[in-house]
């Protein structure tokens, strides 16, 4: 039951990223602790080309703003690249 719920959260986050980064070459959401609130997301998107890492991560934060604010995400690690 819990497993279903947790997979649901990761999938929801991935869906938000898909919407925000339609051209992404790679999108990954890893539940780091298995507790459903510490996540590591990876986004590889040519869109990042020429942007500073700070601006790249800002785009990810913006995409995940709602789950960040409502506490769904307690801790977020981010990896971004413009190409694989």
């Amino acid at each position, binding site marked *: 039951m819990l497993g279903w719920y947790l997979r649901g959260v990761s999938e929801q986050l991935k869906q938000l990223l898909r919407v925000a980064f339609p051209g992404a070459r790679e999108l990954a959401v890893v539940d780091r602790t298995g507790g459903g609130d510490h996540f590591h997301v990876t986004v590889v998107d040519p869109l990042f080309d020429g942007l500073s*890492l*700070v601006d790249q*991560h*800002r785009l990810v*934060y913006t995409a995940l*703003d709602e789950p*960040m604010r409502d506490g769904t995400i307690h*801790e*977020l*690690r*981010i*990896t971004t690249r413009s190409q694989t």
Partner: protein
Amino acid sequence: MSDLRDKIQQTIESEPVVAFIKGTHEQAYCGNSARALDALRAVGASFTAVDVLPDPHIRQELSALSSWPTIPQVFVGGELVGGADIVQELAATGELEAKLNEKLGESWRRPGEERTQAVSEGSGFRLLPGSPG
């Protein structure tokens, strides 16, 4: 513009390397804050830490200034360099040293020179608008 925001801005502008963290340089209360400080230590940088925990407004005002939602936040020469993930990544690739050199010359390389500074006034006593006084 709030008084507190002014103080945070001043701290960002006046400290060569400043890390806003949960805790102090001696005791970080969050794994990410510890990661950010360890990245600075790994390159031998002197830094000033500011603890955001004593007053939730510090974090609010900081994020409003920096457009960065999370703690830690590391600034070099007045510029936001990143949170824990970025600072760790830049330290690993050598880009953190390059950034420090670019912004600060060679003056930043003073391993072990660390301190924690308060950003709000020491007494913590302040009349808030609308409070009964």
